[in-house]
């Protein structure tokens, strides 16, 4: 695809960002295919009041093919790989639509933080904990890792 789309997304990101997305920018002005972003943990979730850093790798065929998002720091969440920060989210793989933008995908990732899907886990331990429904344990463990790594 032409870089026009990414340039326009960059322009839009400099003007306004969706709620909960704190930053969205290219790493290097000369390279539209590597971005960084910051999102705010959603309220009323163990992730609230915390800012999370992500890296974004955009493939040549974007937006026909989805970008890859990774959390930079370790995070305990059923759908996020503890070691690599890979995110398992359907809209970033088999339900990806070229109608999504980097900004709207970040909104979906932020929603995933607050509403995990423990049935398709990348982090089995965290998924088991969420499935148990033990809110105070979930909160304690999540906050422990946020304090430790963020």
């Amino acid at each position, binding site marked *: *695809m032409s870089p026009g789309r990414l340039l326009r997304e960059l322009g*839009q990101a400099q003007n306004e960002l969706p709620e909960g997305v704190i930053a969205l920018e290219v790493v290097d002005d000369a390279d539209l295919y590597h971005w960084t972003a910051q999102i705010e943990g959603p309220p009323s979730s163990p992730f609230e009041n915390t800012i999370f850093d992500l890296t974004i790798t955009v493939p040549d065929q974007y937006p026909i*093919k989805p970008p890859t998002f990774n959390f930079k720091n370790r995070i305990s969440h059923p759908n996020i790989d503890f070691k690599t920060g*890979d995110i398992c989210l359907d809209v970033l793989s088999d*339900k990806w639509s*070229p*109608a*999504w*933008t980097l900004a709207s995908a970040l909104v979906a990732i932020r929603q995933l933080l607050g509403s995990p899907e423990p049935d398709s886990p*990348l982090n089995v331990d965290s998924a088991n904990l969420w499935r148990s429904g033990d809110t105070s344990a979930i909160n304690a463990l999540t906050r422990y890792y946020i304090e430790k790594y963020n």
Partner: protein
Amino acid sequence: MHSPANYHDYTEPTGTTDGVMTPPQDDSEDLQQIDDMTVYKLTRELQDNEANKRSLIGSKLPLSVLANEYVDPSFKNKIESMASNGLYYRPIRGDGNCAWRAVLYGLLDLIGSNKEQCQLMKSLLQNYHTMILDEAGFEKIAYEDFIDSFYEILDSLIAQGPQYIESNSFLENTELQNGSIVCLRFITSAYIKTHSDSYEPFLEGESIDSYCARNIEAFSVEADHLSLAALVSALAVVSLHISYIDGSNTESETIHILNPDYYVDQTDFGSIKLLYRPGHYDLLLDP
């Protein structure tokens, strides 16, 4: 799905018991580690590699050529009976976009020799179809490139006449064709989203948004019957005439005609003919 690419650290089986190979322990662990994402990516790669060997839109051939590819009489007889009516076909690349690509080419073929109709299509895209996209909540930033691809094709068609869609600058232009296919996919999705009452009952409980993202907006996902019905209504300028060929005992093809819910501004460019064989669509053309 069984690809050697999965076994990046595969080790040769170490032991045999009565001549039966025992797989090493870490092989089964490897298999468990292949998550859905990896399977999805590998499947896509395999499909892409296969498909890239064929033309996006092949040359116009008599249907008898296709009939000769078949031994199975249930297929062969039906295609031969269609061939006897003097029909031609254009093979379309089987990359999951075949129905969409066939409709794109079929539409351009219908209007290509009439500059006024090309202009009309352009202004409908600009006004009518863009309005549906906006109404369905598509972001302009996400759709404008794809509308532009379609405009660019229509502009060249107006400037160069029907030979443009026979030229390699169109036939081999992956970016323009694929951009226009995404445009068709978006307006189809938008039409479904803005007419959800008509489509929801057919989705077996899946939400409209999920269905549209998974089956329509996602590139390289084959069109099902519902998508084509919605595409026709979204375009609102053509009907689709689909000849189904399968392994049944009937002598001739089964024909389905899809008409739009309405023709916008009474604009009817005619009928696009598709040939369906299980899993694949090609374009049918009059002599």
